[in-house]
């Protein structure tokens, strides 16, 4: 394995090319492995999963052995490595595919106009919906964005335009990085403690959820905006200064607009990230069956909390209905988050500043 430093494969025979497996070698091995897997599992009466596992084992053993016989040890090791590395990718895809499949197959059945237009008020069993939860999520997330985006972008501007080389900037860069790792439940506890100080015990407010989400969202916005502002070429700034434009106008009119696509991408991704948060909202935004559009009074249901409550504490007679609600809401939430992600990618891809690479 470590023969790189010793003489590479130049042996006595001196053929121009080292012997290697035929071009179709890998495919042949895969077909062979699948065949063996299918055969064995049929004989012992096991299912698809067993067949796949057997096929994979056969492949991981057979191909390198063949390679060892034909090509020698180093190539065989390389083939094992290649196989294993691709296998990790396949393995990583299993949860994604199974998760999306599960959510769609279980959640699509309940989707209907009624499901989207009803709340859970006065609902026992059937006929409920996620109207209130959708609005809860929209309002709480929008407010969180309204708090986080200005703070986040201004901080990024400070870091890139004002704070270079200063100690405060370094401290803040570091703290922002650390903040990225604050557990979401801790953010919820923080918001709860803050609002209890103001409103007394038992407080549940939509705005509290926004504050908690902001704690999670600000660092994401800062980091992505900072990256984007750094990509703005200094020539642009210098040209602007040379024309006598003050620094703040240069930032507002030249630097930020140049980076805006990337910043919007970052913000959208951050929104997508916090829109799916459950734990802090469970603590501070609470749960209700009603549509509440006022984030400053009373509790507000959001989609993630709705899902959690439907699955964690449904009324006994209507367990099945509530599980359906949970899956329907999960599908809706995943769709919203995925759409935001795709939107962010598209914005990023279409308007990305031309960088060197």
């Amino acid at each position, binding site marked *: 394995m470590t023969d790189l430093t010793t003489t590479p494969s130049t042996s006595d025979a001196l053929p121009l090319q080292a012997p290697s497996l035929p071009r179709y070698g890998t495919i042949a091995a895969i077909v062979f492995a699948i065949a063996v897997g299918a055969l064995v599992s049929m004989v012992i009466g096991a299912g698809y999963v067993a067949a796949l596992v057997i096929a994979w084992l056969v492949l991981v053993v057979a191909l390198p052995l063949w390679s060892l016989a034909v090509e020698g040890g180093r190539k065989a090791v390389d083939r094992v490595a290649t196989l294993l590395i691709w296998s990790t990718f396949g393995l990583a895809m299993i949860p994604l595919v199974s998760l999306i499949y599960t959510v769609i197959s279980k959640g699509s059945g309940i989707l209907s106009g009624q499901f989207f237009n009803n709340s859970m008020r006065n609902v026992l069993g059937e006929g409920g919906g996620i109207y209130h939860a959708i609005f809860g999520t929209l309002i709480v997330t929008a407010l969180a964005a309204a708090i986080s985006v200005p703070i986040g972008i201004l901080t990024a501007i400070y870091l890139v335009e004002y704070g270079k080389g200063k100690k405060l900037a370094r401290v803040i860069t570091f703290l922002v990085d*650390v903040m990225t790792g604050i557990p979401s439940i801790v953010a919820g506890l923080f918001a709860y403690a803050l609002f209890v100080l103001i409103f007394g015990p038992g407080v549940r407010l939509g705005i509290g959820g926004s504050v908690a989400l902001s704690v999670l969202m600000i660092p994401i916005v800062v980091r992505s905006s900072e990256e984007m502002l750094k990509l703005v070429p200094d020539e642009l700034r210098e040209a602007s200064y040379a024309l006598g434009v003050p620094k*703040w106008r240069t930032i507002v009119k030249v630097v930020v607009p140049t980076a805006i696509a990337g910043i919007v991408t970052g913000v959208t991704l951050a929104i997508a990230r916090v829109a799916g948060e459950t734990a802090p909202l469970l603590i501070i935004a609470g749960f209700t069956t009603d549509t509440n559009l006022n984030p400053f009074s009373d509790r507000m249901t959001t989609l993630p909390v709705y899902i959690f409550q439907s699955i964690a504490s449904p009324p006994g007679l209507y367990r099945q209905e509530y599980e359906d609600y949970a899956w329907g809401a999960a599908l809706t939430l995943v769709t919203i988050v995925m759409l935001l992600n795709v939107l962010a990618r598209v914005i990023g891809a279409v308007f990305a500043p031309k960088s060197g690479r």
Partner: protein
Amino acid sequence: MAGTVQESPTEPDPGGPGGSVVTSGDGGSTGRVGDRVFAGLSVGSAVLIVIVLAGVAIFLLEQGLPALGNSGESAYGKDNIWAYVGPLLFGTLLAALIAMIIATPLAIGVALVISHYAPRRIATAFGWLIDLLAAIPSVVYGLWGINFLALNLVPVYNWMGDNLGWLPFFEGPVPNSGRTMMTGGIVLAVMALPIITAICREIFAQTPKMHQEAALALGATRWEMIRMTVFPYARSGMFSAVLLGLGRALGETMAIALVLPPSVLVSFNLITAEGASSTIAANIANNFGNASGSKVDTLIFSGLVLFVITFAVNFLGRAIAARGQVKG
């Protein structure tokens, strides 16, 4: 760190503070009101972040520290606060450890596929797919974990219990619901995977092309090239990626709250429901609504412990990443 390939910075380094060329525009801004206001605003925001982070710490300290003296009823029937937080901390670390053992090799493999193995165009799409994993809300992971993954893992656990039962980890008995520490660890692994992958593939892609081509030109196979050029170059980055993934796994709440049976005890038995210790975050989520008075303090104290640990892990991760960048 022996064998680390050092090179002058030929690549742009996105993360490092002060890493790029500094152009100060201060000269053009003397005495203008707009400038002062704007500078003030941006400094204010930056300082606000420090205040918020300090606020998180202070609130946790103020609310959590009184719980240090809690015992009996207010410590959920335990003799003292540590008897309650200790097992939860153990559960948190164990679940995160399992997650890392599973996720690290997977993430490195996936990152290699994206950076080196897949054709460029497909690689971008693969990158998106992995990022989708990061976008799925944790409560949905929980839903999937409890209704799909856990149930499907039961035969695997049964096999493990039968064949590996002599190891204390796999003693069983296996619950038919499949809600075990192992399931929790697997869900966490899936959730941490995209984070580790994202950082690893950035760093793998930054490995100097010259090194890679030199290795290939000397007749190295692709795997040898990766072992001899990519891994040494990326070692500190990979380490910090794992730490950041660990940070995510430690703080993950909802998925675990749904998947892991909530009990407070210390046990290495990974495939039983009876001996599974819950994690701090999940325990807070499960019990917070149920608590008031001194029990809230107890829970907030456990949150403080979690915060300190996550902080430390992230701190370490970022510090290593920063050091790696200065060198690389």
